[in-house]
């Protein structure tokens, strides 16, 4: 009884969550004219690719995809290296004011991004970096969540391995590179997924940091087309599908890490 009830509720919820996405997929493959037909047909009788071709060839969408990939992968790569280094220092090294410094880092986690939006805009403006990749890549590097995560992962490693390496004369950087990094691989993957996902979905900062059409990301590009495309839902749907496909594919591959990453990422707004 309980199981049947549970299944019924779960299936209803799963449908409520996913049907809009499949509806968008179906809309993206329909001629705009068909949207006005009543009753609506769910599965288009023939696949219409016009929305995709106009999105890909008549708008800078591909450029936005490229920008998103460049920005998100750069931030991810840099964050994984820097955060694992800082995490190692906080977890294993002894230096004065270590705990005090770590508390300061944790405190910066409480600063909501929207609160520093205005001065951040001026800093990037004064550096003359508006409308560049630098504007999109540098500010997101100032995010302490990764340090916190990596410290947690590295703290759990046994000290014996590093000490053995130290006795063999390996330098601290060598220990980080050859002992610590291979051992925290699962943690690095979680951090990489979290960082990439945060960048892929980020909106308010790219919105203020760039305004050239050619510098937009997928999110800001599609959002700012709203007034241009009006109710051309076919092309919007194609854009939404194209934005979602890579991330969903990625999710299906790394489901466990995705969920771990998003639960960990909850600590930072």
């Amino acid at each position, binding site marked *: 009884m309980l199981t049947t009830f549970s299944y019924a509720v*779960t299936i209803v919820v799963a449908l409520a969550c996913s049907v809009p996405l499949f509806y968008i997929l179906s809309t993206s493959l329909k001629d705009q004219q068909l949207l006005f037909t009543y009753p609506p047909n769910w599965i288009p009788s023939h696949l219409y690719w016009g929305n995709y071709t106009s999105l890909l060839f008549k708008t800078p969408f591909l450029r936005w995809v490229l920008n998103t990939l460049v920005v998100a992968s750069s931030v991810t790569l840099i964050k994984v290296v820097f955060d694992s280094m800082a995490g190692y220092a906080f977890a294993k090294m002894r230096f004065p004011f270590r705990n005090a410094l770590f508390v300061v880092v*944790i405190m910066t986690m409480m600063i909501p991004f*929207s609160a520093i939006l205005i001065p951040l805009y001026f800093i990037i403006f004064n550096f003359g970096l508006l409308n560049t990749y630098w504007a999109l890549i540098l500010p997101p590097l*100032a995010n302490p969540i990764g340090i916190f995560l990596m410290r947690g992962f590295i703290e759990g490693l046994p000290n014996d391995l590093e000490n053995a390496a130290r006795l063999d004369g390996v330098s601290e950087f060598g220990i980080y590179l050859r002992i610590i990094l291979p051992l925290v691989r699962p943690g690095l993957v979680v951090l990489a997924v979290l960082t990439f996902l945060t960048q892929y979905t980020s909106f308010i900062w790219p919105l203020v940091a760039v305004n050239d059409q050619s510098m937009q990301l997928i999110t800001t590009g599609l959002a700012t087309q709203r007034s241009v495309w009006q109710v051309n839902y076919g092309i919007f749907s194609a854009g939404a599908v194209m934005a979602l496909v890579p991330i969903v594919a990625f999710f299906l591959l790394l489901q466990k890490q995705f969920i771990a990453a998003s639960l960990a990422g909850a600590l930072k707004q």
Partner: protein
Amino acid sequence: MTAESAVGPAPAAFPLTRPGRPRLSKADHRRLRRRYEIGRVAVAIGFLLPNLFFLIVFLLWPLVQVFIEMFQTGGLIEPIRYVGLRNWERIFHDPVVIQTLGNSLRFAVIIIPTMLVLGLLIALVLQNVKRGGATLRALIYLPVLAPTVIAGLIWLFLLDPDLGAFNLFLRVIGAKPLIYLGSTDLALPSVAAMEVWRSIGFWALYFLAALIGMPRELYQAAHLDGANSVQRFRFVTLPLMRRVFLFAIVLATIFNLQIFDSVYVMTDGGPANTTATFVWYIYHALFFFYRTGFGATMAFLLLLIILALSLVQMRLLRRRIGV
């Protein structure tokens, strides 16, 4: 002092533990130790520096700037002038500030209870779903993957008065179609519904993780004592989940006081500012009204609110952070 060489012969007064081997003098020992300590601190700084640099330049420095800009006007077009606390006076006399604060609160009040209660219920039923559970969980989690603006665009279509799925459904069952985002009454609840839709999967899995982590012995003990499933939920699960729940409330409040993306694409604050949120107004203060000081003062107010909530969150988390 015997500081000339690091490895000198031991002074005669110093008893040797193993005769014949050279032994460091106390001073030498201290000097080497100091050098080692300095080296160690230098290495630690080297490992921390790349991160600290960015944290200082793009997080702490802007924070200081917010504080300074709070006492200024101008900056973008007009020259900077120091006006003391006038900006605070202005924000509390600006009806839109009060309205956007109210809207942000309304969003939080609608979204948080709905989301958390539904999330917990879904987590409870998901616990009993074994076969096909992975697929169902993935389907529930799908909207969480969508960037908020993409989710907003999808809902913009669903809520369209003429073409949207909601009104198609209403027409099918013979009800009168509604205007959602264009109406001052329904716009905010509609955006709130989108927010619930896109985050429910996250909270379901968050609570599911908490439920799975509960000690099974307590349930077995309760079962032996003759507690039925409702009693077990009421007297075992709920008390154990208290911290998890409190944490979720604080976290969700912090998130939902900062709603911007969905409002930006779905309504842009309209109609008649009924969906304009606090962050939306901070953004507008800078990019539409060029009122930097005014915006910075609102940002500072937001910071204070979030900080207060974060302190509560820290207290709840203290054991997990381990400092």
